């Protein structure tokens, strides 16, 4: 069996490939559903309904997709420059911590200023957090996979310390949670009686902006050149270290904004479970999107839909909601395989 590159890929193949991949995943996962003793078709229907079946389901899916878009963008930008930022989770919490620090009474501004202010301080905090691994990488050639990954635990434990100690809200009846964000800092609701908040608008704008920066600006050209061929970029006079550090600030800032949307939008105060691994899932979102900032929007909604759908499937059909992790992981693998097959053909000898 041999793999050979295709000279060109027909358009229909590019469109069919991801759909076929998801279909294959459903077939594969039906085995697990049967094993759990549930009827396959009804289970998938329950999943689809839970994800997109009603106004409420759609709003919940979009609430969940919002932080995934931002952490997905963070990974997409960093990976374009071959800066392997695995620290989205830590940067998310850093953004949430900054929003809590400044947003619970320390600074009081009218809402049109307060909300941007929280995003700015959050982004700065997240950017600075990734600056440390970026500097270690550029100055001392320390592998950023290790440093960014380990910083996640440092920040999460720091949040633990703060919420069980100095930042614990005395009004929260002993729960480890922060004081509520001031009213002016709360992201406005988009639809009455849902949790859908303005963070979605921010995430969509961020996706479009990142796409514009990556494809239409000097910075984008530099980031892509450094990622694709550092030797040629360096030879042509593109400042490598400066570009990596700039990428780190952008990437860390984007991931931190996901923390801001959760604290100031979804929860309205800081808890230790604001993120069920959004930072890590963001990596999968970015990969599924092929590192395309606009693709991140679709990939984030897809992942959020699967997670929410699996929750309601588990309630209705008594299938563990861990099936969501199986489906998303399998989807990622299958889509990557499908994309490879659009570029290569298999020959049997």
């Amino acid at each position, binding site marked *: 069996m*041999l793999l*050979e590159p*295709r*000279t*060109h890929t027909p358009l229909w193949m590019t469109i069919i490939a991801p759909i076929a991949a998801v279909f294959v995943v459903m077939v594969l996962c039906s085995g697990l559903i049967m094993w759990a003793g549930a009827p396959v078709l009804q289970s998938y229907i329950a999943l689809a309904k839970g994800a997109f079946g009603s106004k409420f389901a759609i709003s919940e899916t979009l609430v969940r997709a919002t932080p995934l878009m931002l952490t997905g963008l963070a990974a997409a930008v960093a990976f374009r420059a071959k800066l392997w930022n695995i620290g989205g989770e830590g940067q998310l919490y850093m953004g949430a911590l900054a929003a809590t620090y400044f947003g619970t009474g320390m600074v009081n501004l009218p809402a049109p200023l307060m909300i941007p202010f929280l995003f700015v301080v959050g982004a700065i905090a997240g950017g600075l957090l990734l600056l440390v691994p970026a500097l270690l990488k550029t100055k001392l050639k320390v592998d950023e996979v290790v440093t960014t990954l380990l910083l996640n635990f440092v920040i999460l434990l720091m949040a633990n310390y703060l919420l069980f100690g100095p930042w614990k809200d005395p009004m929260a009846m002993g729960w480890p949670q922060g004081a509520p964000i001031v009213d002016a800092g709360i992201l406005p609701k988009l639809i009455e009686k849902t949790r859908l908040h303005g963070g979605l608008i921010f995430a969509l704008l961020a996706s479009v902006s990142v796409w514009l920066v990556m494809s*239409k*600006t*000097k*910075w984008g*050209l530099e980031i*892509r*050149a450094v990622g*694709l*061929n550092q*030797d*040629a*970029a*360096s*030879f*042509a*006079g*593109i*400042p490598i270290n400066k570009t990596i550090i700039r990428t780190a600030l952008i990437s860390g800032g984007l991931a931190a904004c996901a923390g801001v949307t959760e604290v100031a939008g979804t929860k309205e105060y800081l808890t230790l479970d604001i993120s069920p691994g959004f930072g890590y899932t963001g990596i999968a979102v970015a990969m599924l999107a092929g590192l395309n900032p606009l693709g991140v929007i679709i990939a984030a909604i897809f992942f959020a839909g699967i997670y929410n759908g699996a929750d309601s499937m588990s309630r209705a059909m008594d299938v563990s909601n861990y099936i969501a992790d199986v489906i998303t992981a399998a989807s990622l693998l299958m889509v990557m395989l499908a994309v490879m097959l659009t570029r290569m053909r298999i*020959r049997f*000898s």
Partner: protein
Amino acid sequence: MTDTETVLRVQGITKNFGDLVANDAISFSLKKGKVLSLLGENGAGKTTLMNIIFGHYTADGGHIEVFGKKLNASNPAEAIALGVGMVHQHFTLADNLTVLENVILGTEPLWKWVQDKAAGRARLKELSGEFGLHVDPDADIKSLTVGEKQRVEILKALYRGAKILILDEPTAVLTPQETDQLFGTLRDMLARGLSVIFISHKLGEVMAIADDIAVLRHGKLVANFPVAEASREIIAEKMVGEAVPQPRRQIMEAGEELLSVEDVSVKDENGQQILKNVSLHLHRHQIIGIAGVSGNGQKPLSDLVSGMCRPGSGQLNLSGEAITVFDPKEMVAKGIGRVPEDRHVQGVVGDFSVEENMILETYASARFSKFGWLRKKEITDYAYSLIKAFDIRGAGPETIVRGLSGGNMQKVILSRVLENSPQIILANQPTRGLDVGAATFVHEQLFKARKEGAGIILISEDLEELLAVADSVAVMYHGQISPQMPVESVTLQQLGLLMSGEGFSVHSKGQDHAA
């Protein structure tokens, strides 16, 4: 001729890559004890054909017989079992293992507790004695010279029982003396009944070693005849399809000094001295050729002038003014055009489009960007004009560069460099791997720049190229550089000796340039 046995028969081999016909019904045969030379420009299909014979690719049509047995393609192990050995242009040796370990690597079963090195050693000794291929079995590969590494590659093939040896551009990395040695070895092997397929660009060598010649052009076999019936002109014409007029170097008066390298030494990261007291003087309207076996200091010299490294001691002067900032951007701004050694590594971003590669050095200028935004229309127009001016075929501004041929890729780099009218041009191996037509184009462009007043440093391992193009030549050896010698006063043989260190003397200080 009936007594000579046919060892390899290629019958109607056809291979398509999409719309591209890489091999079109090619047939030829190789006889025992003979050398068949396979000639052709880059992209003519030589490598594809060899990969089919060696089992890397599956042919779409036709078949191959080795010693009368049909080769079921797509498996190198079978080709090896039938006695086909291949020495690739880029060596496939593990640097951190010894010669013996490299030779026996892969010949033993995977699941075996102890390697039987003694038997391997005995056989290796026997083979190297028999064919005069002397290397120390216990030397680390990384300590060997290029010529020695090639001997190991040949031994590897012989160890696996090769009776037909395919050599892909074996002389590209050798000095003329090492080439002679290789030819001696090959003649020994022929006398012992081995057969050789010899792939090369260099006509002189082909005439010296081959018995038969097969010429490929655009995937077709256009000629197949005994070497005795051929002349250089005929072969060249068959390769290119038409007679190529070689641009002639005009004699020009050198102008004022553009660049001087004064007594520069450079150490690498490990503290190894890679440039030793190198001095060089480049003048307007002058092409200085730098000869030398690869790895003798050409890279640090080119890095230095490119702004990729800084001198440990000594200095560089641009029109009499000392350079203090060593940075690629700074060098470009000061009017130094740089054509890097390895197109794929330093020259282009392969996954970028033609236009993005064309502005890679100048994207930040007011012409191509405004407030941080790229001026797309301006960039595309610029790319169109360069594609036209440099005759870059089969490509538009948005074409991804990776898919271009070597020649067209080099034209993208040349256009980027020359369009800024550099006063100093550093061209490191600008024609390596290019076919005659593309190489001629590169030379024409260099001559044009020289005529307009540029000074050019041309680093090349191809001595014939240096003698044809340069005004004066200096040889690098072990990080040192010889005096610049007017090209009329040196011969190929003299350069070859200097390259191997014989009679090499260092540039004495204060010596004037060759006019």
